[in-house]
């Protein structure tokens, strides 16, 4: 009789082990979050600040993906403003087995599309805008707090597209102003690479386990 009782216990333990075993791909975790971004340097001396959102879909123990959108405003020394909007995706690679650890450092690389506009605040305002494509790569870490994770990261984003030319000039009354393009709202920028460093702080909630 005792042996008979032992068998169900054995079966239960085998079943529970099997269930853990089937979860060894660690994929399917879906996270939804918001983020604040700071564009630290690049063409402009002052940082730009932005807000955005993202979702993350995990494909394995070491691989996650991030799908994001950002909107960033940069004050160009009080002489003009620059707006950047990004929409894109990144693959996050965790170099260590950190799935259920508090600190989850990662590398990321990906691609995005972006829209940039620059406007001067001069009496005769000048303006230019462009669409471009970009690649980004960087590193960061997530602080895993079970249902929530907080991530901080830095990435370098390199835009490939027509350059928007703008520079600070001085008029005959010794006033400084920002001139965008040739000053007549005509675009003459050549195609080239333009990079900027990004800092991101994001808060993500684990919403579902999809598979």
């Amino acid at each position: 009789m005792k042996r008979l009782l032992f068998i169900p216990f054995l079966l239960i333990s085998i079943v529970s082990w099997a269930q853990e075993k089937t979860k060894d791909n660690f994929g399917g975790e879906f996270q939804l979050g918001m983020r604040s971004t700071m564009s630290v340097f690049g063409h402009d001396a002052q940082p730009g600040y932005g807000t955005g959102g993202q979702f993350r879909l995990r494909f394995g123990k070491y691989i996650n993906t991030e799908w994001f959108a950002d909107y960033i405003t940069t004050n160009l020394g009080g002489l003009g403003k620059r707006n950047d909007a990004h929409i894109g995706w990144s693959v996050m690679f965790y170099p260590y087995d950190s799935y259920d650890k508090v600190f989850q450092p990662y590398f990321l690389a990906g691609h995005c599309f972006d829209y940039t506009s620059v406007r001067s605040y001069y009496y005769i305002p000048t303006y230019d805008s462009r669409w471009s494509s970009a690649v980004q790569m960087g590193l960061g870490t997530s602080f895993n707090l079970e249902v929530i994770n907080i991530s901080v990261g830095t990435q370098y984003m390199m835009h490939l597209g027509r350059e928007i030319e703008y520079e600070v000039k001085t008029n005959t009354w010794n006033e400084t102003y920002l001139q965008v393009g040739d000053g007549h709202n005509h675009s003459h920028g050549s195609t080239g690479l333009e990079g900027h460093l990004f800092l991101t702080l994001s808060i993500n909630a684990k919403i579902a386990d999809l598979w």
Partner: protein
Amino acid sequence: MVRCFLIVLLILSGFFVKAQEENSVIRKGLLRAQLGFAHGTLLNYNSLNTANIGTDLEYYLDRRFSIRSDVFLFVDFFNAGNNRIDFPFVFNHSLYTGAAYHFFNSKSFDPYIGLQPGFVYGKSNQDVILLASSDFKNESLNPAISGVIGFNYYAPKVFHLLFNVRYVKASIATQYNITPIDELRISLGLGFNLNTRKAD
């Protein structure tokens, strides 16, 4: 004797915490919302105050963490936006979404701290003053970030009181200038809560 007393105390406190978790409305699945009044002061200007109607929606992922969204509608109670040229904006509505951490396990008192990125939709007053023209687009959508600290006090069933202090870092960047509108905002309100899950 002392050892026995401490052991009994520990066991009792364990039961007490467990009982609190079971009876408390503050647990995983709690959904709460509120409509309240928020009074703010603009930090980049001397003695300029704002009034807002604030509403929020929050869901508890577990006892410690929740996700929440807050919406504030600027109300020109002080008749500031249109009539005072020293006031930086005509209106300034905002939306913040993020998460909050709830400090400790109490049946009714729920202090928390949160971080919420968001957006501000505002209309600057400065453009009108400087350029005196109606042709210029001085409304814009701008990124913002907000930190909040406060507490909820839950009544036994479905209502709670709330109080929080919020710091907002934002600016309104229009076609012709950037107006900083950093603000410290105090909210007070009455909330409604509902447990969407049964207690474990």
